[in-house]
């Protein structure tokens, strides 16, 4: 039923448009011939009549009866005016083609447009809702601003104290660690220096002893050492023993 009403309304609309469009055609199809009241060659436009070139109308009026419009040319071709039925049929076909091919895209476009408008409305409502919520939140915050300031200040002070303690503790640990490392390094350096000094002293002592012995040793010393060598050899193990080495 609803579809029928909608179709009916659409049909009436199309008919009205076709009628309005066909009205000028009707005027076109009727050629006026009365020129007695016309005092000039200029064309005159009357309500319900089509604009016709004045000289054409004038020329045509010489051959016809004075005053009365010619009958509507409904169907005959080849006359001055085209057949009115053909023009109405032509117009109807044009409107029908427009309707047939333009119905779906136009409907789809209108539907898309409607959905877009709906989305925009929804988005605007959402933004409005959020703004209202924010406004409420800010209002609430503003009402508790002083309390929050006190709480925040207290929290910041506590955090600062903790941070201070942490920094001090880390610095103390780092200092202690550095002190231990430095002490260890100093100890190692001292040990190395002590060893180097000792080694150098031993080398010098041995070199000095070697020099003294080389210069001061006598033939008697050589003979004594050679005799001692013989005595030491006598203390060496028997040949069955596999040991080898010095006697010194």
């Amino acid at each position, binding site marked *: 039923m609803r579809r029928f009403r909608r179709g009916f309304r659409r049909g009436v609309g199309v008919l009205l448009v076709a009628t309005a469009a066909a009205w000028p055609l009707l005027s076109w199809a009727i050629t006026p011939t009365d020129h007695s009241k016309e005092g000039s060659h200029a064309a005159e436009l009357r309500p319900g009549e089509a604009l016709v070139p004045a000289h054409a109308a004038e020329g045509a009026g010489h051959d016809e009866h004075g005053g009365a419009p010619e009958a509507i040319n409904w169907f005959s071709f080849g006359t001055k005016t085209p057949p009115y039925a053909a023009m109405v049929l032509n117009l109807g076909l044009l409107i029908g083609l427009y309707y047939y091919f333009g119905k779906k895209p136009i409907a789809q476009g209108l539907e898309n447009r409607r959905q877009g408008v709906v989305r925009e409305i929804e988005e605007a409502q959402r933004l409005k809702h959020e703004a209202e919520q924010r406004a409420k939140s800010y209002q609430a915050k503003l009402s508790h601003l002083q309390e929050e300031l006190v709480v925040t200040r207290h929290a910041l002070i506590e955090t600062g104290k903790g941070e201070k303690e942490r920094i001090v503790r880390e610095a103390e640990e780092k200092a202690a660690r550095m002190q231990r490392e430095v002490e260890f390094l100093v100890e190692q350096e001292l040990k190395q220096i002590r060893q180097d000094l000792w080694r150098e002293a*031993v*080398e010098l002592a*041995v070199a000095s002893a070697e020099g003294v012995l*080389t210069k001061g040793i006598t033939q008697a010393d*050589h003979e004594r*050492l050679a005799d001692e060598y*013989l005595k030491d*050899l006598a203390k060496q193990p028997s040949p069955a023993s596999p040991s*080898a080495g*010095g006697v010194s």
Partner: protein
Amino acid sequence: MSISLVARRYAAALREIGEELRQLDTLNTEISNVAELYEGSAELRIALESPLVDHASKRAIVATLAKRLAVGQIAQNTLALLVDRRRIKTLPAIAKFLREMTDKKRGVLRAEVTTAVPCSDDYYERLKVQLEKMTGKTVVVERQVDPQIISGVVTRIGDRVFDGSVRTRLQTMRDMLMPSA
């Protein structure tokens, strides 16, 4: 093939020939003398080892050397063979192995005795007796002088060393005094 292995084979062959002809001591002495000369003369080594010197010249050098040292025919033939086979470089090793083989066959040990200054013959004799007593074998003492040992005596018998030098004592003292690393 290593020089040691080649020299040992030549030395073994020479020992057999020397024993057959009952000239082992003479042959040993002659080979040792030539080897000593060869080791002591750089020019001789270069001349005999250089590929630039032709073979006939090397044979002539060896023949002249043998003639001057008055070595026997066996030693001369040995030297010529070494030149022909290009093995003259092994001559010192051959002499060493021949001496060792001869000593071993006769139960003789060679003791290399090093002192800072020359000692008396009496001392070397007493040392020889002591070494023979220690080893139970006949010992031949080879005397060497090396002032680097400062004083004392160093005896080497084979791979055994009896070190009584002052230098070694100083070294031992130094090692004892040195701090551990």
